[in-house]
């Protein structure tokens, strides 16, 4: 698609400098190792392949979450969102989950979405925790504004941490924001934020090679199948 760079300079939002998220590895309940690492903008077209089949899954609000995530990642790819980032979870090289968010300003973060492509392993919990870890420990922010679009998200974030209710509107719409402060984060960290660094080289090499994606049917079965979900 032809791009008018003169106009782009006006349309593209400013970007804050963002320290990179150092990758970590987490042992899941099934013994598999999940590498969490930061996605590059160039990874987005490939990542969207795993988000796409979720657009048609009504269960647990996957359709809404994935539709919005799709738009957010596309906006990041096309430079239409300010200071966005995306973290990925990979097991055996396969993409199993995605989280994203952005910096609203230097001190306030805006949490976007958490999409677990493989379920029953608390992948969503681990990825959300990594997202909060990024905002608090690497972007050095004071607070993150969060909303939940599914009952599962509400239990995992608002109740488990527990987050502080505010009257601040969230840019995703819906209910008012909940807030993760530094105090809440560091109080919750010992029971919710895990992972080891550095990631062993062989695991990192596997994750950094071409991202593997399950086929659409497999993704739908993992999310909405009858079994164990």
């Amino acid at each position, binding site marked *: 698609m032809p791009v008018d760079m003169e106009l782009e300079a006006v349309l593209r939002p400013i970007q804050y400098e963002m320290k990179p998220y150092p990758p970590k590895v987490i*042992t*899941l*309940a099934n*013994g*598999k190792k999940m590498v969490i690492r930061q996605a590059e903008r160039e990874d987005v077209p490939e990542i969207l392949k795993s988000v796409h089949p979720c657009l048609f899954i009504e269960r647990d609000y996957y359709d809404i979450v994935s539709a919005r995530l799709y738009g957010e990642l596309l906006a990041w790819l096309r430079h239409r969102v300010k200071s966005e980032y995306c973290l990925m979870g990979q097991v055996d090289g396969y993409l199993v989950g995605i989280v994203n968010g952005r910096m609203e300003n230097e001190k306030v973060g805006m949490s976007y979405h958490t999409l677990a492509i493989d379920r029953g392993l608390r992948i969503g919990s681990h990825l959300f925790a990594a997202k909060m870890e990024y905002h608090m420990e690497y972007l050095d922010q004071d607070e993150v504004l969060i909303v939940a679009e599914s009952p599962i998200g509400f239990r995992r974030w608002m109740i488990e941490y527990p987050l502080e209710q505010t009257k601040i509107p969230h840019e995703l719409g819906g209910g008012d924001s909940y807030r993760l402060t530094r105090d809440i984060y560091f109080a919750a960290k010992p029971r919710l934020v895990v*992972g080891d660094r550095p990631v062993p080289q062989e695991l990192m090499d596997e994750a950094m090679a071409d991202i593997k994606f399950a086929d659409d049917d497999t993704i739908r079965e993992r999310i909405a199948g009858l079994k164990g*979900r």
Partner: protein
Amino acid sequence: MREVAVIGVGMIPFGRRDEDSLMDMLAYASLKALDDAGMGDQSVDAVYVGNMGGGIIQHQTAIASSLVDRLSMLPAAADTIENGPASGGSAVKNGLLAVASGYYDTVLVVGGEKMREVTGWRATDFVATMTHPQAEYVYGVTLPGMAGMFTRLYMEKYGITREQLVAVAIKNQEMGGRNPYAHVEMAITKEGIFEDHASIVNNPVIADPLHLYDACPVSDGAAALIICPLEKLKNPAKPPVVIAGFGQATDTQTLQERDDPTDLKAVTIASQKALEMAKLKPSDIHVAELHDAFTILEIAESEHVGFFKKGEGGKAALAGKTALGGTIPINLSGGLKARGHPVGATGVAQVVDIVYQLRHELPKNRQVKNAQNGLTVNFGGFGNNVLSFVLRRVEK
């Protein structure tokens, strides 16, 4: 009393079945059992349905009346049996007695529950309605809470360890992975749920000292049996399995009223009665399905049935004695822990799984070689209403 044979069994995959109503599930399982029995369009004399939550969760009562009509089995007699999580076992007992007495010849017993229609919180609250309304429920007790307190006492009295509980969870989820009807098919590892630091997130405490993987899931599902007098069986297509013995016993509703809350007297009495009626000893049992709503219950029940001495059940589980190939394989279906626990279905599903075992129909990775006798324990309340069945293979 006539000897009663199970001539047909049916089960649908347990799990989250958003697309099926409670009646759909009961009907599917029933039709599978009728097919398995080779009954074609024949009807039955009576239908017994085990269900605990239809009135509360689905706002539907008289489930059996509805099912018998749905299955075009009118004017067969039909009764719904509600006995908490032992509803399925009670339905089997009522069907058994009806046939054994000579009053009915062919009976359909089906158990089912649809629990995923509500949130986990509401499902937990629904199950807690079986507790004492004034002495327990009003104080917020839940079954996981009760099981947590029971586990702590059991640990203190008998030295049960978390590692032993973890061994039960791993075994049952491994077996669930081999069972196409199981809710939870995901294998778990000791590293992932116990040893690694990440286990604090993977396997959080739900009711100290119990963790997430110590508890069964909340499930939808149904299972069914067709029973008839053994004497009426002519050239059965499949090896008949008889219900050789049953026992039922009750205990105080509240745990605190028991002399020793770790003593599951109703399990001991019910299983002893079942074994005595079958003229068997615990050591004659080749495979068992116990009510492991929590991992501690598999261990405790294995001791109260008499498979192990008190305090030895946990060690036995850790040593692999309750796994396939062990001295007494337990919950090779995955148990409640992995097959799932749609409460009204469980007591029936346990019998169905033992029938599969005794017919030698399962794949090698789940089949106890040459199993002849099996036992079930269906645990209602917190051990205040327990049913046990002993099943025996009859060679043609």
